[in-house]
């Protein structure tokens, strides 16, 4: 079987199935031919190159490969739909962020950090979307469920792995913190001084 034919089958398969396709699934398209993962890789590279100049791209996600439209054509494509995509609430996004960056995490821990109760509705919504799942139960009183994100979460947010999440802002360590506190204590009613300290620390944050 010629590689060109393999390429056509792989391209058609990627478009025919809505879920990302793993390398195994792609090799599995050819049970009767001797097609290796190497061949598939070459074909995927070819396809990727052929999409360079187009409105679609080949994306590698955690579960496998997916063909999707490029962000650059989004302004036109959004004209196709009557309704705007649903906005996610800040409460949901903050909860999701905590689960993504801090998994495995319990609901109580999320509430500690956010300082407010987490509504069951939000948890259920994300479970239903299969963005989060129960990883197990912590062996403490009440056996709280430990939550984590799923591959569907990565797919939906167009990430290959959790490492592709935007990096979390640094937190100042306690020693620096205490030094600054002691330094600033005498001036704590002086907003000008505080503002100066602020602009300094902003620079630091920008460098991070």
């Amino acid at each position, binding site marked *: 079987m010629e590689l060109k034919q393999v390429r056509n089958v792989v391209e058609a398969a990627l478009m025919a199935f809505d879920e990302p396709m793993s390398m195994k699934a792609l090799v599995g398209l050819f049970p009767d031919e001797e097609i290796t993962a190497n061949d598939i890789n070459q074909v995927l590279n070819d396809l990727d190159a052929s999409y360079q100049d187009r409105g679609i791209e080949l994306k590698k996600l955690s579960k496998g490969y997916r063909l999707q439209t490029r962000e650059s054509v989004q302004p036109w494509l959004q004209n196709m739909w009557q309704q705007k995509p649903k906005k996610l609430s800040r409460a949901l996004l903050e909860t999701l962020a905590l689960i993504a960056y801090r998994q495995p995490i319990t609901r109580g821990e999320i509430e500690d950090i956010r300082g*407010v109760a987490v509504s069951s509705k939000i948890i259920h919504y994300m479970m239903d979307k299969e963005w989060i799942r129960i990883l197990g139960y912590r062996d403490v009183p009440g056996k709280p469920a430990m939550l984590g994100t799923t591959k569907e979460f990565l797919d939906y947010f167009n990430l290959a792995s959790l490492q592709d999440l935007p990096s979390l802002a640094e937190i100042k360590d306690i020693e620096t913190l205490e030094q600054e506190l002691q330094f600033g204590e005498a001036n704590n009613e002086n907003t000008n001084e505080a503002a100066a300290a602020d602009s300094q620390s902003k620079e630091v944050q920008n460098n991070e």
Partner: protein
Amino acid sequence: MSEQEVKSNPVVKQAEMPFAVVEGKPFTSMPTDLYIPPDALEVILEAFEGPLDLLLYLIRRQNLDILNIPIYDITKQYVEYIELMHKMNFELAAEYLVMAAMLAEIKSRMLLPKTHDDEDSEEDPRAELIRRLQEYERFKQAAEDIDGLPRVGREVWVAHAYLDKQADIESIVDITVKDLVMAFKEVMMRADLKVSHAIEREVLSVRDRMTVVLDSLLKAKTVNFKSLFSKTEGKQGALVTFLAVLELLKAHTIELVQSAPFADIYLQSSMSEG
């Protein structure tokens, strides 16, 4: 924004905070002083994701560094917000009150003179608050970052081509009893422990029997109460059936009818005439 009884607070430095708003309300920014138009209070409180968020807002509004919170000013402002909300009979989440108490405590501890003995053991009372604020702020930022990621259905769409015979795919499913059990376990755990207390073998057998009873009512309009019982099942079986009938009665699913005292009792569906 209405002009009535505007009171400005001299401590507050006015600084612009970008603030996107809501429900046709014309404001484009958060109020720059402590005055909030009464009808906007709810909208504004909803804009905050809890006490830490409100506190962060108060700090950022003045371009202050979290690391150097002027605890006196901030506490005063925070408490004024809370009091305002109280005055409006606004149902205030407990978390806001807890934070007010915490701020008041920090404030009072900072008023106490420090002895030399304390210096090593006691850290600045603000430290814990600052740690929490920092921690919250980084996840607030992370939430915004995640919101900014390209999303399927918003910035990108999955490319697909139509494929005939998709029905074939649908018809092949693969689930086992274990999948079912795990799904049940998960859904009940999520629904809180209070709901899941009652699922035991006995209850399931009652539920099973409820289905059997309803099934007999699907076949006939009325069913003789006696006919539900059979000797071969023994006492245990009779009890299960009886409990099933009680459950169905409780749920307004069936009703019992009797034409005369001591006559046979019949079951019928509550809906049979409707």
